[in-house]
């Protein structure tokens, strides 16, 4: 009797973790018949996509697995908790067979040895945009490959610009003067995400790059100038002082509510913008620092990686899944359904012709720069320094130069 009870207790204790894992939002996808027949592997994939985007990926995962004769189960975790989840899985050796990682995180995770080089599976990334490969590589080895990429551009309210007799600005000076003219009656000229997270860093990097600055030499006059430029628009009132707390969703809300005439944002917002009745909007590349200058946009997008699970058969199959997700046909599907730009320039060119909405972003992405190509595993430190400096400058606590000097000194 007593032993029976003990056994029952142990069984319940053992089942508890199983019950917990079952709570994850797992959706089995793929022909379960293949698994039932006894041949083929059952693979797992983890990403941070949420509906409706997740549906596109589930469809692709399923098709890729079925083509291999395998089955695949996808888990979609909330974006903010993906990295913590991955770290837990590293410790417990329960990493999924295929793992999606946002491109600036790839090198960080790869440096621990948790990922396998994609060359093991014959994936070279040939034909893919050089900067996309740079973001997914560490020490010359490719670990993550993105089927689609995105970037940032300048969105503008056509009606408001027309009423003020303006055309979209192409230089910083034009942006500043246009923003000032568009400000008034509860509307600010310009909005962006200046929040104290990596989102703020992502939105600031194009300004420093377009001015000739770089993230490896943070404390430079070019970077200071870029900070001072954005701060000057907050100071003269053409950008709301609340910008220091705004993410990209907040900037979008200001723009759609008619409280901002222009904003810095990305192509993934186009569906939300189109859904707003009576909003007449357009988009152009972000302005260059001076006439004749070049605007450099940042490269965004998620890569697919093969974690080192120790099961060679599954790793090989996972490699094939990653290759399949990055196939030309799937690049087109992801781009069309989820507003990405194919990472292969040839496919992107074809896509640009078929989708006039995203065509401007095809050329923006062609010149875009990755955040971690130069920084590598130093991204968390420098990424934090950049948004901290931006906060100091935008709140008027320090000039651009003083702000950069302060954050660099703090972390050295």
């Amino acid at each position, binding site marked *: 009797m007593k032993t029976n009870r003990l056994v029952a207790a142990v069984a319940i204790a053992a089942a508890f973790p199983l019950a917990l894992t079952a709570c994850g939002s797992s959706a089995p996808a793929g022909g379960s018949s293949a698994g039932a027949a006894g041949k083929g592997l059952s693979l797992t994939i983890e990403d941070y996509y949420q509906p409706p985007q997740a549906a596109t990926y589930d469809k692709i995962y399923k098709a890729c697995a079925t083509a291999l004769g395998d089955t695949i189960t996808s888990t979609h975790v909330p974006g903010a908790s993906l990295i913590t989840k991955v770290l837990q899985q590293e410790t417990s050796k329960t990493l999924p067979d295929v793992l999606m990682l946002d491109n600036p995180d790839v090198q960080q995770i790869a440096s*621990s*040895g948790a990922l396998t080089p994609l060359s093991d599976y014959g994936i070279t990334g040939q034909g893919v945009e050089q900067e996309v490969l740079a973001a997914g590589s560490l020490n010359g080895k490719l670990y993550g490959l993105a089927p689609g990429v995105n970037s940032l551009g300048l969105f503008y309210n056509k009606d408001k610009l027309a009423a003020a007799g303006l055309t979209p600005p192409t230089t910083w000076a034009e942006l500043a003067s246009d923003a000032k003219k568009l400000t008034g009656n509860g509307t600010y000229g310009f909005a962006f995400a200046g929040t*104290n997270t990596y989102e703020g860093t992502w939105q600031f990097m194009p300004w420093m790059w377009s001015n000739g600055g770089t993230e490896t030499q943070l404390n430079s006059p070019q970077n200071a100038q870029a900070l001072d430029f954005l701060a000057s628009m907050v100071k003269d009132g053409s950008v709301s*002082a609340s910008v220091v*707390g705004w993410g990209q969703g907040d900037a979008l809300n200001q723009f759609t509510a008619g409280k901002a005439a222009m904003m810095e944002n990305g192509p993934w917002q186009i569906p939300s913008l189109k859904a707003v009745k009576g909003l007449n909007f357009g988009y152009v590349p972000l302005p260059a620092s001076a006439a004749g200058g070049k605007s450099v946009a940042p490269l965004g997008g998620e890569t697919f990686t093969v974690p080192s699970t120790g099961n060679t058969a599954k790793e090989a199959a996972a490699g094939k899944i990653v290759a399949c997700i990055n196939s030309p046909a799937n690049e087109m599907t992801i781009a069309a359904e989820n507003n990405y730009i194919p990472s292969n320039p040839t496919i992107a060119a074809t896509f640009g012709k078929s989708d006039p909405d995203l065509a401007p972003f095809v050329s923006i992405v062609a010149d875009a720069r990755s955040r971690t190509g130069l920084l590598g595993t130093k991204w*968390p430190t420098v990424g934090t320094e950049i948004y901290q400096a931006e906060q100091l400058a935008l709140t008027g606590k320090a000039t651009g130069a003083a702000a950069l000097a302060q954050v660099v000194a703090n972390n050295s």
Partner: protein
Amino acid sequence: MALSVSKVARNVPPAETRAGRGPKRRWWPDRVTQLLFVLPAVVYLCLFFGYPLVKNVIMSFQNYTTSTFFTGYAPWVGFANYVSVFKNSLFQTTVINTVLFTVGSIAGQFVIGMALALFFKRRFPLNGILRSLLLLPWLLPLIASSSIWKWMLDQDSGVLNQTLLFFHVIASPVPWLSSPNVALASVIMVNIWLGIPFNATLLYSGLQGVPEELYEAASLDGATGWKAFRYITWPTLRPVVSVVLVLGVVYTLKVLDIILGLTGGGPANATQTLATNSYQQSFVQFSFGTGAAISNILVATSLAFALVYLRLNRRAIDE
């Protein structure tokens, strides 16, 4: 509540004095039985309090990075994490912010909580309903209430600024969360709102323990109003007050969600406290060693206040 439990415990003769008396009928000593009763609690404490605490202390002496999770390798770095924490100019800011946040929150919560407790001690219609409504901030999920406060405190379209402007209380919108000079005060204000139910409830129940006869007797001697509070309510309530204050300090020191929800520690680190900075170091910058070092400093501070609490508790019983 804690007081009455300890009082009851004191009236029961200690188990040890009873044990040992009488003939030994079992083959194991009574002592073993006693220890077996304690065992589950000891195992629980070691597993869920001891292990994390020890692990956190060890982590703070290691270079614990993202790679450690996969390789399990975390080189011993001695006090390097603590040195880098103390050297960083942000540390001074976070300590000052933590002190201001804690003192400001506690002062506000306690004064308003005490006033409400005294108010609700009177008998009037709807007293019960109003008193339960007072608990509302406590019942809402923190993330939800901080998001709503963030909207209300928005500089341009927040309801607070709109209202104040409408009644001409202010001439221009107050940058509640967007100015480094105001943000900390705003965050304290929200935390006070959140802490009032805790203070009011505990003080209210403390007031129930003040014998009515004392007031009656005092009123015959002419001690009413402020004098009654000063010479009857306050001295009788003192043990409850010290418990409320010390627990308040410990709860406030570790506040994370409200600050993350409202400002994320910004703007320009104006609302960065030890707790938020520890979180940032560990889960944003993935510098787990540094994060552990900061949280140990926080744990040590909380522990100091917890000891004060235990001491006060003991003294209250002895009185």
